[in-house]
């Protein structure tokens, strides 16, 4: 139960879900706010007056299904990120869910993300249809109609990129982009990406970048020179250098 786990029960979700009939008429906000707390931005921000004015600031919101047009203003105003907008009329088989998402990087339109349930478990994959950059950003995903009661969050697909340069946090995607732009030597990539310029002095990344260049460009490994090995091989404090005497 919610009090123990933070996850609302199916009954609780049912209790706030609009009727089939209302869902068939177009987008509508769904508010998963089950605990009276002193908070009212949803009611005060609704341009349609679809959320009944609170008598007490601890009131739970009640949506007037006729007035709500699913504009989504309340999604952005809810401090608890408790509101989504559901549009069952999106297509024959799919519904559109608009939900707040406060993590970087934001997904891109067309990206396939993992669709999660209220406990964060992966249930399905979903396509990102719209990304509205606001505070919070709002992501619209298209999902199977049968899952609309289950899905409540998204997460990016686990990365397929491998880290090439630990110091400057560059992965294979970053490097392949530089290669695609025509930078095809270790030195050329180094100067634009900072690969090899960090505190490891290029020790970790140099063999990796050479192999990556060889793989991507289908050339022998030995055709790539490492970047220039410059003094010093281990970093040293300026204070220690400054104290040097002959």
């Amino acid at each position, binding site marked *: 139960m919610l009090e123990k786990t933070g996850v609302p029960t199916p009954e609780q979700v049912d209790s706030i879900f609009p009727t089939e009939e209302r869902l068939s008429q177009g987008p509508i906000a769904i508010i998963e706010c089950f605990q009276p707390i002193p908070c009212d931005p949803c009611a005060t921000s609704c341009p349609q007056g679809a959320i009944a004015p609170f008598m007490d600031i601890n009131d739970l919101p009640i949506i007037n299904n006729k007035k709500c047009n699913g504009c989504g203003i309340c999604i952005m105003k809810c401090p608890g990120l408790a509101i989504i907008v559901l549009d069952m009329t999106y297509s024959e088989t799919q519904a559109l869910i608009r939900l707040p998402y406060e993590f970087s990087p934001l997904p891109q339109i067309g990206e396939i993300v993992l669709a999660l349930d209220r406990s964060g478990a992966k249930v399905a994959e979903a396509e990102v249809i719209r990304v509205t950059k606001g505070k919070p950003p709002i992501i619209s995903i298209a999902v199977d109609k049968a899952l609309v009661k289950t899905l409540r969050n998204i997460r990016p697909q686990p990365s397929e990129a491998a*880290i090439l340069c630990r110091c400057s946090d560059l992965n294979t995607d970053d490097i392949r982009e530089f290669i695609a732009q025509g930078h095809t030597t270790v030195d050329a990539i180094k100067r634009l990406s900072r690969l090899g310029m960090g505190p490891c002095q290029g020790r970790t990344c*140099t*063999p990796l970048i050479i192999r990556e260049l060889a793989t991507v460009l289908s050339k022998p490994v030995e055709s790539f020179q490492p970047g220039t090995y410059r003094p010093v091989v281990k970093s040293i404090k300026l204070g220690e250098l400054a*104290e040097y005497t*002959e």
Partner: protein
Amino acid sequence: MIYTDLLVVGAGPAGLSAAAAAGTQGLDVLVLERSHQPGGQLVKQTHMFFGSKEQYAAYRGFEIADFLLDMIKMPNVKLQLNATALAAYDDGIWTAQVGEKYIKVKPRAVVVAAGANERNILFPGNDLPGVYGAGAVQTLMNQYGVRPAKRVVMLGAGNIGLIVSYQLLQAGVEVAAVVEASPNIGGYLVHASKLRRMGVPILTSHTVKRADGNETLESVTTWAIDEKWQGIPSTEVIWSADTLCIAVGLSPLCELLWQAGCKMVFVPELGGYVPYRDGNMATSIEGIYAAGDAAGVEEASVAMVGGKLAGLSAARYLGVDIPDESILDCHKQLEALRSGPAGAKIRAGLGKLTH
């Protein structure tokens, strides 16, 4: 400015052997070792060495380190610990950090025996805490007595991968599997058999597809690869493990040789870019010698003989009369150590060095 006859960079098997050889000839030798403990990788080796008497066969690495340290105990050889060589300049000056002090050395000759660096490979999750180089795991358990993991997947069935897997078992760590991309086990087969007898599977033609975990490593996905080294879908196996040990080889640490302007050659069999050198370990720059893994990744026994040869060559370069027999004896030992089918790869690599 410190003036010395011979500067030796690194107090591993090669560096110590070079220092002992040159020191015995009466030269002033300064050995710089970046660690607080001398011996290089020897101190982490708990297994008995192969080779023959001259290379301390049947002794364990950490014992050999002590023998070598005894051999440099002479007034004209100075071993400086916590001392990292920083740079080689074209005016013949070498700089180093000793503790928190910056020093400059003007040596008449140099032996670079800086060792090697562990390679990483590219797969998603390769930077997760719990993905360690095999050497790091050895450092933790054999040098410091810290159990590095509960359950390990080992990537690489060369000698390092096999030996470290066995050492992990000795330290009470479960080894889930040893995974090797090549079709055959690369290391000595006696090491492989030791592992198999303990029930550890060795999967050749397999590699790591990805590593996963929330914050630290929790699982490793391996898969089979085809003859073009491409992963074969639907052969994935997910291993629950808190550590993935990477033993895919070493890269010679030859930054100082690059800086010094030595001619470098790409020789995959020796670990990548290595200094060009003649049969007596002389690089293309006069007075600069290379030995041990920095000159090309080989076994510790070769490092000791190569180090001795570099030390003798440097002494000869500095005007000491070194009999030909001493040099020839080193050549003979090296030849023996690299002979046989197991040395074929190294011999092929060395062949590329000469032209």
